[in-house]
């Protein structure tokens, strides 16, 4: 069947309109992409410019005429960046491991076990989720100071080994494991503890991995608490290390070396993100849908 001339025309204008609309959308999206990526490009670019050429550019150049890796060598030799990395690694690994241990048991108790006071306690836990860190950090600072735990890993780690939100997240996931598995295990005489480690955790591995990754990101970027609790550079984490480098590291003018340190600090998490992209974005959006 032949369409009338008018309809063909109408369809064509609709198509062009749509194409113009799509193009505008892509331009807009590309612009925001540029805004997001530009700082990353600029730090990478500045980090491979030599000090002399950086200082010589009255007008900043968008390319490096003599790319050099000296800044990276300086970043790891002139300031204790490697030490900051090591500290952050120790802090991140221990905090995450301890937290997983604590919250897996708690989530299991809420999801699977039945005991007096459970629902009352769970409401209490949910209420704790609303308490802002800024209110409790004051007393925690005084407590840790009085326990003589300033400038120790213990002092850094202790306040962040529990997270009500992650307990909640895991509990929700544990509850999705069918009850039948539990009864079957009970019939076989499996203890609660064994059931948790042999059945629950393997089944819920995706969520557990998500929680681990989110906690690692949080640890790697934590700044406020480490800043309060450490003033000895031997215990600085990367965030404080960067701040220290900025204030009195290479001298305020050596921007290329500073940018090399910034790249080194940013890179591990960017790689982690690119590898676990879906898990991270899913986990973070769970935070949004819980409310």
């Amino acid at each position, binding site marked *: 069947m032949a369409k009338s001339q008018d309809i063909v025309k109408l369809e064509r204008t609709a198509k062009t309109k749509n194409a113009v609309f799509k193009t505008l959308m892509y331009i807009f999206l590309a612009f925001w992409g540029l805004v997001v990526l530009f700082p990353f490009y600029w730090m990478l670019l500045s980090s491979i410019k030599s000090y002399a050429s950086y200082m010589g550019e009255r007008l900043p150049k968008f390319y490096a005429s003599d790319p050099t890796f000296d800044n990276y060598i300086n970043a790891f030799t002139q300031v204790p960046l490697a030490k900051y990395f090591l500290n952050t690694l120790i802090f991140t690994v221990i905090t995450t491991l301890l937290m997983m241990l604590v919250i897996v048991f708690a989530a299991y108790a809420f999801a699977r076990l*039945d005991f007096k006071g459970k629902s009352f306690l769970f409401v209490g836990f949910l209420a*704790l989720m609303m308490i802002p860190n800024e209110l409790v950090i004051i007393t925690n600072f005084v407590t840790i100071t009085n326990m003589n735990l300033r400038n120790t890993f213990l002092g850094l780690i202790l306040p962040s080994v529990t997270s009500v939100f992650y307990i909640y997240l895991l509990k929700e996931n544990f509850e999705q494991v069918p009850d039948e598995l539990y009864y079957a295990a009970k019939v076989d005489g499996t203890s609660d503890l064994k059931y948790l480690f042999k059945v629950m955790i393997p089944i819920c591995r995706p969520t557990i991995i998500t929680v681990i990754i989110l906690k690692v990101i949080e640890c790697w970027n934590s700044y*406020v608490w480490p800043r309060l609790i450490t003033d000895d550079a031997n215990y600085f984490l990367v965030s404080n290390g960067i701040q220290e480098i*900025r204030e009195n590291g290479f001298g305020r003018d050596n921007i290329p070396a500073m940018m090399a340190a910034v790249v080194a600090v940013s890179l591990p*998490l960017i790689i982690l993100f690119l590898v676990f992209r879906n898990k991270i974005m899913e986990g973070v959006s769970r935070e*949004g849908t819980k409310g």
Partner: protein
Amino acid sequence: MTKSGVKREGIMGTLSGWLYLAPALAFLIFFMVYPLIDVFIYSFEEGYNSASQTYFGIGGYNYSYVLRDPYFLQAVKNTFILVIFTVPVSTILSLLISLALNSIEKFKKLFQTIYFLPYVTNTLAVGLVFMILFQKTPYTDGLINLLIKAMGMSPVDFIEGPYWAKMFVLCVYVIWIVMPFKILILTSALASVNPVYYKAAKIDGASKTRIFFKITLPMISPMIFYLVITGFIGAFKAYSDAVAIFGVDLNAAGMNTMVGYVYDMLYCDGGGYPSYASAAAIILFAIVLTITVINLIVSKKTAPKG
């Protein structure tokens, strides 16, 4: 049979349940519940000395001291300006970006990945990049000033210059940091709108704007309200963004935030005053709570179902 668990009779069940919870409970009581009570006590103890742990008396002096401290008032002003600018701008911008993302198919994943990057970067580290982009030094005007000059205006030092310029950089950086979360939440909210509604609207010949205001916006309004509320709370607690750009001594830069004031009172040069810090923190959260409640009332009133 309950969904949540199996009935286990007697004391043994209760005991093992509490045993599993014991570590979490211990940490939460010691590092959250006790400090929460303690912060109120601190805030009323006058002349508290952290070295000897003694105080003169009980009263509201800490509050009146904080409320008269010019540094605190400056911090309150900075924080409010930051909140008023960043929350609407970032919410509207992220809504536009999410809508644009929703209307394309090709490269959608790529854009989403790029947009999420600021979320996983170290605030302190990337702040330094913003600093050098906006900074004006004796040897170079910096990149942003180059653009400003290209537009025929005179360069400004955004890092150590006039107040509005410093506030501008801080707002830009805060928006840059908070966008990933908002884009993520809004794109998944948009994707979850039932396509049947759109089809029905198309059959009725509704225009794009009409579809947006009559279908899309009402459907995602709960998520927008959620983002506005958490955005307010987050912006009121801004701190490390400011440190990243202006350095540790925010009072000297005139760019301190309320949370920054709390930490400075606790520690740093002017530190050692947990009582003042507590009073300031409680004032901050009284403000945040009030605004959150107002937000909730407004969102209840405008929501489709009461």
